[in-house]
């Protein structure tokens, strides 16, 4: 394997451009390590190790945005008091990522580009209307996170592009919830994940492990906007069926995922929405 060590962001972009699509940028390398023993083909790839690019690390506040850097880690977010106050779901989700060792190494940008349908970080970013900032030698591009994924592990990032920032608008929220259903209380991969927010911009309901990508649930969001009466979890099932398409896999079943998504939504929102059985 070849590991390239860029001295600057510009270096990194040049390396990616020169590799003509064959170089993989890595930061914490936590996702790479999971499959390392089994995927021998990974051992022959070229990696661009971004971990030395200190400039990409800090998170910043502007008047109307929180900006996570390309190397901002889960731990950076967990220990930031302001994030805890203004974007509590980021902290809640970060604490659910692997073990503390992983939280220290793993990055939000890495979580986005790894594109796991079971990601913990992506749902809360999407529920906060995050925008992904991509940079390459050809310039800068912005893609709203809820339009970033185009299919399973497919996304609107060219191989020569780096995620250099993730921008979240600062808004008052009246509802903020993150629920991760795993097979144990820590260090588990989500079987059902939900991030829910409500701001002046409207409801956001984002589901994980329910489709080939993390995705918003427009039918449910509409149902919430319209204040439709919901008398029990089963009333949510038709909307869920339109929004997501869970599968049976090694971790759970489609039936469980659908039913539990309905029950968690119902239970979490019952009070906020004034639902009565």
């Amino acid at each position, binding site marked *: 394997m070849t590991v390239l060590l860029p001295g600057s962001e510009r270096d990194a972009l040049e390396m990616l451009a020169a590799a003509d699509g064959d170089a993989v940028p890595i930061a914490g390398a936590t996702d790479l390590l*999971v499959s390392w*023993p*089994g995927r*021998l083909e990974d*051992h022959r790839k070229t990696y661009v190790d971004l971990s030395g690019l200190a400039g990409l690390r800090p998170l910043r506040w502007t008047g109307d945005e929180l900006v996570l850097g390309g190397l901002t880690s889960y731990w950076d977010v967990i220990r930031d008091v302001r994030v805890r106050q203004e974007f509590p779901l980021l902290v809640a989700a970060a604490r659910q990522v692997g073990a503390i060792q992983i939280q220290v190494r793993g990055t939000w940008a890495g979580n986005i580009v790894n594109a796991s349908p079971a990601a913990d970080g992506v749902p809360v970013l999407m529920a906060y209307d995050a925008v992904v900032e991509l940079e390459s030698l050809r310039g800068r591009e912005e893609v709203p996170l809820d339009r970033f994924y185009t299919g399973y592990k497919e996304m609107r990032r060219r191989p020569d592009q780096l995620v250099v920032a993730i921008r979240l608008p600062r808004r008052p929220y009246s509802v903020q919830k993150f629920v991760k*259903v795993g*097979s*144990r*209380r*820590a*260090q*588990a*991969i989500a079987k*059902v994940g939900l991030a829910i927010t409500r701001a002046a911009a409207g409801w956001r309901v984002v589901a994980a492990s329910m489709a080939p990508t993390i995705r918003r649930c427009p039918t449910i969001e509409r149902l919430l906007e319209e204040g439709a009466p919901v008398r*029990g*979890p089963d009333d949510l099932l038709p909307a869920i069926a339109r929004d997501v398409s869970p599968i049976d896999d*090694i*971790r*759970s*079943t489609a*039936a*469980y995922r659908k*039913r*539990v998504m309905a*029950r*968690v939504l*119902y*239970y979490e929102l*019952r009070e906020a929405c004034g*639902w*009565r*059985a």
Partner: protein
Amino acid sequence: MHRREGLAKLTGRERYVDDLPLDDFLWGMTVRSPVPRGRVTAVRFGADVDWSAFVIVDHRDIPGPNEVILIERDQPVLAAGYVRHVHEPVVLLGHRSREGLRRAVRAVEVVVAPEPPVLDFRVPPRPDQIQYGRDNVLKRLKIEKGDVERALAQAPVVVSGTYETGAQEHVYLETQGMIAWLEDQVLVVKGSMQCPYYVLSALKHALARDESRVRVIQTPTGGGFGGKEEYPSDIALHAALLALKAGRPVKIVYDRGEDMAATTKRHPSWVRHRTGLTRDGRLLAQDLEVVLDGGAYVTLSPVVLSRGIIHAAGPYSCDNVRIAGRVMFTNAVPFGAFRGFGAPQTLFACERHMDVIARTLEIDPVELRRINLLRDGQTTATGQVIRDGTDRVAVLERALELSDYRAKRRAHAAFNETHAAQRRGIGLAAFYHGAGFTGGGEVHLNSRVRVAGLADGRVEVLTANIEMGQGTLTVFTQIAAERLGFAPQDVAIAEADTGRVPNSGPTVASRTTMVVGRLIERACDDLRSRLEVDAAVRGASLRAAIVRWHREHAAERLVGDAVYERPPGISWDDANYRGDAYGAFAWATYVAEVEVDLATYSTRVTGFVAVQEVGKVLNETLARGQVQGGVVQGIGWALMEECKFRDGAMINNQLTNYLIPTSDDVPPIHVAFLENPYPHGAQGAKGLGELPIDGPAPAVLNAVAAATGADPRAVPLTPERLMAIADFGLRSAE
């Protein structure tokens, strides 16, 4: 006393097999069968590997019989033209680079003409699936007491139920590993194992070498739980075959994925109960059928079945009992020894069934157990008269008291009335575990222990029993030190090296402290008698006597010796499965409290009390650790540890997809011991190692049943499984 090897382990200085320095060696790896059953028509070596740089071993390289000798001889060391399970070893490769070896293993194609496999042990096999005997039954055993049919016909109430348990992975921290090399003409095999003499016997047999040309040495072992009882013989043979052919040392260390996929698991089980009772809950008849999945080779399944059926009727008095057990052949990776050894499976069924009975008869589950628990003078299913003086009802009472059982039941009822999406409940299990080998097993083992007096006045304890985290080194030191009046540092424990230590039997079956510990005491006494001093000579005066003896007997060895003797009054009829199955039983009641989330169907264990009578507790810290570890392992088996199989092989063979409890998934575990010394165990100890895995699963599921009204009959009770059997309406909290 502190754990002897504790500091080395804490500081990372302990050297496990993979840490040992080894010069000029090859890595070894295994090419395995891709299919569950069939004839091997070709083994193709890919064109893009330079095979001249590899040592290649197949079944034709085996000097002796191609058999991993254990109870039967049905399992080949390497498949010879026919495979019976996915991951069955076919070819071994040796190479300098581990990375190169990984690629090479993938470049070998084992071509198999598939034949119909049998993959469900509960379904009778079709004729074209028969592969063992006439009916694929690996072993059949039966216990009969009284007249079950008549008692059932006359019983006022009969309650039936079937119960199932899944496979379980050991998840020892250290994966399987072995190194082998030739030292002059002696083959030396070193590695992670529970039973050095089992490995020795397997090597002697398949390599056709006598004892003088093989030596097996146990290395510090990072957990075993039974997973290193029989499997190390396979990997030792593989390393040895490669080393013999290569003429160089060979090291095989499995990574986690290979270890989980290719090595043994706990036997899956199916148990049917048909129980006759009086209306107030007195047991009149117990009719049981116990079926285990053995996998593709016999390995230890007959004795797992034996222990399973002996424990199946529970710690209760019943005059009419019939237990019919069988282990079925399937084309699955062979199931094997795992802490509890069949008893956790049958005790799960028994104790869950007790709660099913209680619900059916509308009586209190505590009362049901209280009236049926064995009293001294009553007999077990095999007709063993229990008269150890232990008050089994007092064990139950203590668990109820420590768990605040009655108050909790009332509090839970109130909680459940007022909470929409959570349910709380409490459940218990009363159980027992026989220590040591079953029936005549210990006599057959004929274990021997030596205690040598050294020239400097210290002693060395020589046994083949090993430390795997459970505390053998520490407890053996305590036993010898106490017997001789020595300080712990004046007792050395010999490395388990078959070239030096006698065969004191395997480190299994909760026998180490009770049986081997007692032999150490007797060997200490024998040492004294060789010195011609009496029991009053202890400590400094005994050390002086040893030093004096050596001065008077230059170049001679001073060795105390002890060989197992069956405790008086014990008898066992193996043909009819009647008599004293074990010298001693440990008795226990465990109580679990749970909270079930009705939105996600997930169960959290919120409280746990473990009360047991285990004879004398020799080292409270270690004993407590054994119980806590067993409870955690049992909670995992009860709720989340699920082996997912395809074609008889585990496919979730990663720790990301086979989940064991984290510290956040287990509650504080309240451990209490009641002591009633056993006269034939070291200092009065009975076996403890396996007991704690027997109780958690039924206690937890009984608690879930109490909390939710559901009727779970199988473990693991994953949220998906609970959803399948219970539709919880979400009540709104108004």
